[in-house]
């Protein structure tokens, strides 16, 4: 490989990127847009779920229960209605996700028998929100019954005891203490951005030369295929690293996701991932001699597997076994694992030897194929 020719290639490519608005948009604006869109767009946290109440009794006890819903940050007690049809109508028209029906004999049965029931009607069209709403509703109601029980015991002059159930779980969540779904998503979105930007940018680079007819002149010179490949990819590698930094800054300062790992482990693993992504983009570009076709293929082969099968949003553990097996082929999954661990757990490269090894294998394989993909000939 000749340094002269390599530098000439890289410099030319950089000038072309600088003058090409489309490349600049993909390189700089797309990461920001994607982080903002996905960072805000995807949230599995349910807060302020709208609630309608149908209080048939209207007693002090029933009001006390509803106050607890009102006080919870998970619910927003919108209004009370007077009959079932109104409640059903509110759920149908999406004005509430949860309806609480308090029966007319609520406090009577509570005081006489010590047990009673309230009805919770949940809109199950969005199963995640429905599950959360039911869980939170149960918690609110059991809080109410616990307190009621203690009051009742105290009024009977009986010992109140510990005040809770005999055995309870004292939960402590590690790595994402507040169970913010954003903390779980953002590192994955970074992987998505890197995969997409890297492949999309490089997919244009060789196709552009064919499309504009400059390839014929280029391959009539003594430049070697390896010099073409490395010369073209060096600028994109630098852009990729810059994008990684951009994502890190946005993730930490804008979305306030914790970053507990080291910059060293982040950038070494990112470099490894970029080699794979750029190599894939380069091969697509060599194979498909039009920019439009190449960028579409690049979108298809990076966006779909990375968004569905990398575990960035949909946990791989919950996938059926055959699909889980496929995810091992998706190189992004290793990077998603690595990023989540570096951001949230703060572990170093050593703890990540598995996924880092897998990425290295990919980097070597993709690099090997990419180096052989480009041939200096006009023969198809």
């Amino acid at each position, binding site marked *: 490989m*000749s340094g*002269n*020719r390599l*530098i*000439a*290639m890289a*410099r*030319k490519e950089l*000038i*072309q990127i600088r*003058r*090409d608005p489309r490349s600049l948009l993909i390189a700089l604006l797309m990461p920001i847009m994607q982080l903002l869109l996905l960072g805000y767009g995807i949230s599995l946290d349910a807060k302020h779920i709208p609630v309608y109440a149908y209080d048939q009794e209207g007693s002090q006890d029933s009001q006390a229960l509803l106050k607890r819903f009102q006080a919870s940050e998970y619910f927003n007690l919108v209004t009370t209605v007077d009959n079932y049809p109104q409640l059903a109508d509110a759920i149908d028209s999406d004005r509430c996700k949860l309806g609480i029906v308090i029966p007319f004999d609520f406090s009577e049965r509570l005081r006489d028998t010590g047990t009673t029931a309230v009805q919770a009607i949940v809109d199950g069209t969005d199963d995640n929100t429905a599950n959360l709403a039911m869980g939170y509703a149960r918690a609110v109601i059991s809080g109410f019954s616990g307190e009621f029980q203690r009051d009742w015991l105290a009024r009977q002059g009986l010992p109140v005891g510990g005040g809770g159930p005999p055995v309870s779980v004292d939960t402590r969540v590690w790595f994402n203490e507040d169970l913010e779904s954003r903390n779980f998503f953002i590192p994955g979105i970074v992987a998505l951005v890197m995969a997409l930007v890297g492949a999309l940018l490089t997919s244009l680079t060789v196709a552009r030369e064919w499309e*504009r*007819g*400059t*390839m*014929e*002149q*280029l*391959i*009539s*010179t*003594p*430049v*070697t295929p390896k010099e073409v490949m490395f010369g073209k990819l060096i600028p994109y590698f630098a852009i990729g690293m810059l994008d990684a930094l951009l994502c890190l800054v946005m993730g930490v300062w804008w979305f306030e996701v914790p970053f507990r790992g080291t910059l060293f482990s982040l950038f070494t693993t990112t470099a490894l991932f970029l080699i794979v992504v750029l190599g894939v983009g380069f091969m697509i570009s060599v194979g498909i001699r039009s920019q439009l076709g190449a960028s579409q293929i690049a979108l298809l082969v990076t966006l779909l597997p990375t968004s569905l099968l990398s575990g960035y949003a949909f946990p791989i553990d919950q996938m059926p076994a055959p699909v889980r097996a496929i995810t091992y082929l998706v190189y992004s999954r290793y990077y998603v694992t690595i990023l989540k661990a570096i951001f949230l757990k703060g572990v170093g490269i050593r703890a990540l030897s598995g996924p880092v090894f897998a990425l290295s294998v990919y980097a070597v394989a993709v690099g090997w194929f990419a180096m052989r993909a480009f041939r*200096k*000939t*006009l*023969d198809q």
Partner: protein
Amino acid sequence: MMITGDQPASAVSVEARDLVKRFGEFTAVDGVSFSAARGEILGFLGPNGAGKSTIIRILCGLLRPTSGKATVAGFDVAAKPEIVRQHIGYMSQKFSLYNDLQVIENLRFFAGLYSVPRNLVDSRIRAALAMAGLAGHERDLTRTLAGGWKQRLALGCAVLHRPAILFLDEPTSGVDPISRRLFWDLIHDMAASGVTVFVSTHYMDEAEYCNRLALINRGRIVASGAPTELKRHLSKGALLLAKCEPLGPALELLRYHPDVLEAAVFGNALHLTVRDAGAAIAALPQFLAEHSIRCTGLREISPTLEDVFVELTGGRVRDAEVRPE
């Protein structure tokens, strides 16, 4: 403007033997052999799709011949394309410099790719700018240049490494006549300094500038030699220029006249190849008048390359069957 090629002492710088190139069913080059000596300007003349570009691309190592062998600067092109590429400059038919780069950026890029020694880069680029008439326009975007300047810039880029052999594939297509003239002056300068130049063209006037010509039709060399030699080729008889009214019926009639070997339209007149000029000039006006065709002029002329081409191929250079290359 002196550009000297540093090439081996051998007098033959390019040799092709029985070159064949097939694209699927289509045979683009069909058993072509030729050689060119150092400092020679060899022209390939033929219609679009005749195989000129394919031959040049094979010689540059851009296409592999289906069979046959080509040696350029002493090296087998198919076996050692990279070494060959260090000794050649190439200008493709379609302008193929980077339009989104400045003039100077294109020159620097190709100087880098050709590994021009660092201490020579500046002087070579200055020479190329002077040659192209682009001094003072270094920072212009290449896309903004007019055709003639683009063409000369492409030539400047192709000779930055002082190649021994230059391949120019229709270098002047789409360029104004004055720019074409300028371009040919440059080519002659280079040949004078020992560079072997291959040029393909379908312009007859340009073909006359070549030392040697190969007439190409349907993938074959139908004749080759110096332009004057080729014109002497037309040995079957004499050439007449006939001005007739109306032209179409006149052509149809004369084609089947026993004295006329060949008839073709040239501009607004007919070129007739006849056995005996004197007899034909005496007989034909009467013959045409009998078929109510007015003949306003009939005289003997000296043949052009186009006439040679018509005689050899039965078709014109410009409008022979077109097939994309």
